[in-house]
């Protein structure tokens, strides 16, 4: 039980770090890294929730984590594709230059 709470709290802290990263960084690549941090921490949370007792882990949690990692990779691939196109149009990855869309 102690391990479960420990890992769940670490996952929560990591999610907050990821959100902070997305909110504060001005580089698009760093925003994608922020998304990846959240993905990893949610996966960690699933694993932590799979801990039932000492030395027993629910296999469903591991299955879900593997699928979730694959989905995260797909999303990251799409994000990087769009990032390449952003760079082609703007010649920069600075979010302050990407403010033509308003309201």
């Amino acid at each position, binding site marked *: 039980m102690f391990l*479960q709470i420990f890992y*769940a709290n670490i996952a929560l802290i990591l*999610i907050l770090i990821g*959100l902070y990263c*997305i909110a504060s960084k001005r580089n*698009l690549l760093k*925003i994608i890294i922020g*998304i990846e941090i*959240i*993905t990893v921490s*949610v996966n960690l*949370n*699933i694993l*932590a*929730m*799979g801990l*039932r007792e000492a030395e027993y882990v*629910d*296999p*469903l*949690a591991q*299955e*879900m984590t593997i*699928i*979730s990692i694959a*989905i995260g990779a*797909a*999303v990251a691939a*799409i*994000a990087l594709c*769009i*990032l390449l*196109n*952003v760079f082609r*149009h*703007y010649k920069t990855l600075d979010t302050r230059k*990407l403010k*033509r*869309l308003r*309201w």
Partner: protein
Amino acid sequence: MYALFPIIVLLGSGLSIPLISMIFRKLGKEKIRDIWAVLAFALSTAYFAYIILYEKLPISYKIELEPSWASIGIKIDAFSAYMSLIFSFLGLVVSIYSIGYMESETGLDEYYTLLLTLVAGMIGVTIVNDLFTLYVLWELMCVSSYTLVSFRKHRWEAVEAGFKYLVMSTIGSLIALYSISLLYGIAGTLEFSKLGEIILSNTNSIPKDTIYFIIAMVIAGFGVTAAIVPFHTWLPDAHPAAPSSISAMLSGVVIKTGAFAIFKILFTVFYPTHFGYGGILILFGLLTMTVANVMVIPQRDIKRFLAYSSIANMGYIMLGLGVATYIAYNYSARLDIVSLALLGSLFHILNHAIGKGLLFLGAGCFIHEAKTRDLAKLEGIGVKMPFSALSFSIGLLNLAGIPPLSGFWSKFFIIMAMLAFLEDPFLYVSTIIFVLNIFVAAGYYIWLLQRISLKKPSEILSKVTETKLSMLIPILVLASLCILITIFLDPVLKVIAEPVNVLVGTTISNIKTNLILGGGV
């Protein structure tokens, strides 16, 4: 394999499109690829129409795997069949429209593949029986729609809007997954049929704050796609940047999938009779519609205008859900009123899917012919394109809620449900705000109708002619559907009463539609 039929058809035809296209390009018949996509949508639409009319629901199917925890369940109940019918029908209409509309674009193989996987993901979300599979198919839908929004990658607008949509929607999905993982930690399983019971029986051992935290996460996570107001900012950028056919999909059905997920999770996992989250949903609904209705007025871009009015309509749907859950918690004896509010909400999903699909496709016709999105330049285009403008006007009148049309009845049901508890000050004030919003919305829809159809065309539009037939047919079909639903209101409401019964979970089939309508139609 019976219950899996629509997903297999859509995914299979989607993944085989590059092959089909390669073969028929050598023969010089590229259009076969478009017909292939249309056929897949037609098959899936026919399947859902058939099971709604003739089959006994729910249909369940289980993919048995060796360790029993890995088995995946599929369950098509009346609610999922109803939503899936809307999704695949709009997919059918949009794919027919795309044959003409996307002719001059490149990369059409990817376009049709993504359109098919998008609808496959949405149908998957509605028919799965456990929360994690729901998340997987949700991401299938999301990844397809990110790519479709930034489909015209040679334009800065599409790329920027696509990136914004991707970041916001991914964070939303991850928050939803976080809430799913917490639910898994509490209950040890993620099957819909077991979750509700487990949570209800453990309300003493689980702190109530945890449950409300999870509910907030679910609403916030899926609410990003449902465009509830604090999380709506991706929508007005993504809709204008995408091709018009995709805007119709996004506005007509993708945001409804978010609403579906919230409806389904709230009603099957957190029973609204035991957890009081209705008030906050009503507040969210009112905030959504008020902000969106105010923001519509300064817009001078026709697609941005329609995008904001989509957000307002999501506000109506959320308000219907909120009223239903609020009444279920506070006045749990009046389940008939709960059903009435849900009926209005689900009926509005249908009306808005058809109406807003029609409006975006019609706007696509105008943009295709006039090559501009500026409302000032599009003034009076209805004189040059009479059939498109007539359909467009019917869509506007439908969404404005002009009384005989079906858009009026869905809002009327929600208002009637709220008026049943006038002694409750909260519902009283909400009703006033809701009615004011409806009047503002009707005002700007009529204003748009007058700008498009009744003004004299300017010099810029002198060369514009009526659009081609393959784009006109889908619009006319949708416009006639708006009228047909109005004429056959009673049978349609009987179909919608089934999903309402599934949600409310009781067998009140006596939602007396005849009594409510008072023989007015």
